[in-house]
């Protein structure tokens, strides 16, 4: 269990995507109920009789979204027909937008500087003061729902239901440790965020230098995950471990979770990470076992040096070698779908784990046994580019029949992978290192050795199967020239 979570994540992902891909994308595509036709630009439409929504108008035939330059009126202002309410910037120009109805501007849904698609509600107009509360509730639900990036509303029920200024009274966290009548100091960005997320800045306890309120404090108060702009890790070409997750958390009995350490931040899973988590737990239902094998790589290394200038990567070499070995041992390429039968796969599709932007993806080299090394490398390059651009098609990441995970480039000597649901085996490749070996005649020499560890589903693949497969694999690698045939 050198790095169990690494392999965890690696595996799970391939299958996780397959499941998530079938879900509708949860983009904030709020249905804009019966909206006016786009042929009536600069008009504010009504939906209901008393509470009206102010829509983003189409200011030109090509406009698809508009940016609110400024609200001429503020919440609570009384509007009369024909008055300018808001300045909207289209792809062509800035225009004043007027109201066609009398009423009170009950709520602003889309703030200054924000953008909304044509037809989206940008504000709520109430006819009388009595309806302001209702209008605000409506506004709150709208803004809540349409805020992009905001994670699923975990601890912020505030906005949705309460009509009044939607800020649930802040947790009575020991109010500012009495330091006399000290005034609140908040940084410029903290103030902006507070306004944007409607956080009462006076209620926030500053944790910054000199007790000032920082943007992070506001984000915490608003229940947002800290938007660490500078995190996005470099896109990875070869496999790379995922960001260390909290390994034992998932399997540990959920009963006695220790209270979070003060100052810790809770970051909800992304969709991808949730899928990983789910699959990892699922993998516990499969009885797996592991077999390791040392492989001499001098020939492979020599070949690699030769073909590297032609664009061949180590990934392609290993995938090719594994595919050739699998061709001779079809059982290792099979899977157990129902616990009662073998499913022999007609193709040998090698999934290769790649870490990308805090997530993980397993692009699949299809028919890796049939393609030659150069085509395979070319294919791999394309897949990685697509993966970076998030353009992989489902069959390009969920059609794997065998998974390859390589952490050798980090100097990892061996590790243990978790079997992704739906596959029969996964190979974990460690680093190749010079090792002193003695041959049958007692002569010492130094050879490059690499430890390969395969995890397999023991319902269908037995120890001898795996051992034989590894022996074949080892022979292929040791006679690496065969890879180019």
């Amino acid at each position, binding site marked *: 269990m050198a790095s169990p979570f690494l392999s965890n994540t690696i595996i799970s992902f391939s299958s996780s995507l397959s499941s998530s891909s079938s879900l509708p994308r949860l983009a904030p595509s709020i249905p804009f109920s019966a909206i006016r036709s786009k042929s009536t630009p600069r008009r504010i439409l009504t939906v209901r009789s008393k509470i009206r929504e102010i829509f983003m108008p189409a200011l030109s035939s090509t406009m698809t979204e508009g940016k609110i330059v400024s609200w001429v009126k503020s919440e609570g202002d009384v509007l009369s027909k024909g008055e300018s309410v808001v300045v909207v910037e289209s*792809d062509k120009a800035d225009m004043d937008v007027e109201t066609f109805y009398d009423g009170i501007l009950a709520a602003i849904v889309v703030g200054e500087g924000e953008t909304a698609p044509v037809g989206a509600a940008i504000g709520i107009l109430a006819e009388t003061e009595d309806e302001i509360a209702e209008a605000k509730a409506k506004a709150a639900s709208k803004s809540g729902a349409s805020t992009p990036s905001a994670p699923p509303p975990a601890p912020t029920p505030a906005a949705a239901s309460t009509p009044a200024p939607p800020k649930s009274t802040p947790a009575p966290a020991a109010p500012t440790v009495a330091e006399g009548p000290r*005034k609140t100091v908040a*940084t*410029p960005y903290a103030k902006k965020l507070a306004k944007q997320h409607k956080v009462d800045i006076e209620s926030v306890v500053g944790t910054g230098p*000199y007790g000032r309120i920082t943007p992070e404090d506001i984000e915490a108060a608003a229940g947002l995950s800290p938007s660490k702009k500078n995190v996005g890790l470099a896109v990875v070409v070869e496999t790379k471990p995922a960001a260390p997750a909290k390994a034992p958390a998932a399997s540990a009995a959920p009963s006695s979770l220790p209270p979070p350490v003060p100052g810790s931040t809770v970051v909800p899973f992304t969709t991808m990470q949730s899928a990983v988590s789910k699959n990892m737990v699922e993998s516990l239902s499969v009885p797996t076992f592991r077999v390791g094998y040392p492989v001499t790589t001098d020939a492979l290394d020599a070949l690699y040096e030769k073909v590297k200038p032609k664009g061949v990567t180590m990934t392609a070499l290993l995938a090719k070698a594994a595919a050739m070995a699998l061709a001779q041992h079809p059982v290792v390429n099979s899977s157990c779908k129902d616990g009662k039968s073998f499913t022999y796969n007609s193709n040998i599709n090698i999934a290769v784990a790649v870490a990308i932007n805090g997530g993980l993806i397993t692009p699949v080299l299809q028919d890796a046994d049939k393609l030659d090394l150069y085509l395979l490398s070319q294919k791999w390059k394309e897949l990685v580019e697509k993966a970076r651009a998030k353009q992989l098609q489902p069959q390009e990441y969920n059609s794997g029949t065998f998974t390859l995970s390589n952490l050798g480039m980090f100097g990892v000597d061996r590790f243990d992978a978790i079997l992704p649901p739906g596959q029969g085996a996964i190979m974990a490749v460690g680093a190749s290192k010079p090792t002193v070996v003695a041959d049958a005649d007692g002569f010492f020499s130094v050879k490059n050795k690499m430890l390969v560890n395969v995890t397999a589903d023991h319902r269908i693949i037995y120890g001898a199967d795996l051992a034989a497969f590894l022996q074949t694999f080892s022979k292929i690698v040791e006679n690496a020239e065969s890879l180019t045939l």
Partner: protein
Amino acid sequence: MHSICFQATGVPGSNYIFDSCSPALAISKPINLRFCGLRKEAFGFSGLTHSSSGRVHFSSRGHSKKVSASAESNGSPPKSFDYDLIIIGAGVGGHGAALHAVEKGLKTAIIEGDVVGGTCVNRGCVPSKALLAVSGKMRELQSEHHMKALGLQVSAAGYDRQGVADHANNLASKIQSNLTNSMKALGVDILTGVGTIVGPQKVKYGKVGFPDNIVTAKNIIIATGSVPFVPKGIEVDGKTVITSDHALKLESVPDWIAIVGSGYIGLEFSDVYTALGSEVTFIEALDQLMPGFDPEIGKLAQRVLINPRKIDYHTGVFATKITPAKDGKPVIIELIDAKTKEPKDTLEVDAALIATGRAPFTNGLGLENVNVVTQRGFVPVDERLRVIDTNGNLVPHLYCIGDANGKMMLAHAASAQGISVVEQVTGQGHVLNHLSIPAACFTHPEISMVGLTEPQAREKAQKEGFEVGVAKTSFKANTKALAENEGEGLAKLIYRPDNGEILGVHIFGLHAADLIHEASNAIALGTRIQDIKFAVHAHPTLSEVLDELFKSAKVKAAASSHGPVSEPVAV
């Protein structure tokens, strides 16, 4: 003096002292109003505290004898001269004058007490452009939205502060040596030391503690420049309370910095600091930010450069007291209401940058030896840059250019003035049209301008009884701008519909600083709209923004299309 400033330049931001080339040289209107009032203080310490800048402060100890000795010969100028032209101060203005003088065949010397290149090269425009180049790239790389729109993916952008600082410093050194070499190559004598006028056509120079040399010249140009102006009550420690001189070294990037003054200097530094991760608070004495700009441009600039960034601001307030961080306390800024003078607020920040403008550096110049008294530190000059003495008479053979005369505190204005003076002393009548001198602010995107702002033009129109036309074009319609995904921007033309004269052009948008010259050249040459609109622009280029601008102007059919609009205006 305020009105003199104004008339003198008659250009947007004219009554503020600024330097387009140098963020360090800008002053915003509000501060300047106060600045005018405080000029005495400024004058008082400008020479005392900034001995390292531009010229070493002339100390009377050890030199007084020579001064009086040479003063004896005051009335009788020498018959033969060491030089045709001596320039005191080797900044951009002095350099421009020297090059042109050589071209005109004059034997020329330039006296420099500090470093060749002056403020612009060493502590102004040049190093700041290096920082702004970095901030522009950082901004682009950090803008996920922008990158995505272009189909690019970039992992986290980061920076190494020392690397950035070195870039700025290297650039300054490089330009400095370029300037020095260009003058040496042309045969300009570079004399090292403090230059002091000891009598008509006579200058003394030398390093402090060394014997002085006296040289004579047919004509003398004062080009001693300026230093950052720090209002009283503000304690500059160079670490947490700084001026542009310190900020350009980028010794630290504070989490939160207050910038006093929202003119060119402040604006450019806000661009740099926010790109490097700081949060910024502006302190502006007038009721709105960026008071020097055309109001419409200012409004748009605020929408793009201030509102979406991590910046907030206090307007209509003076910073009366700023205390550097010490004893475990942050920098403390006391604010009073600009009108009622009542205490308004106290800010606690990590650092404060004083960008309230620049004060002329004219102390110790020996002006008293030729009977000249400075006005708030500025050397009084006429429209031909000839120095005026206390009696209102011209001092023969003595000129003053650049920040030291306060007409238009821009590096390229100083250079243009220097060239104008050389033209005059070589027998060509020349008057520089300050209305044709462009100015630029190198934020992202840039701001540039030439001529009058709309309110200035309307005021002038009312007085002189003509009509004002305004035409505008957007960068959103420009192919090149859209290709760069930088459609945010506006170009604005202020003109006379009756005769097609260009009164002013203001640009906010991608590469605005490079785009302005078509307009400034048109003004300088007196080209009318009805003529320039037939000029062809390559497609697709940003210059088409101006093409479209000229074409959209509605010049009355009766306006003739030949000949310059009017003689250049003497200012």
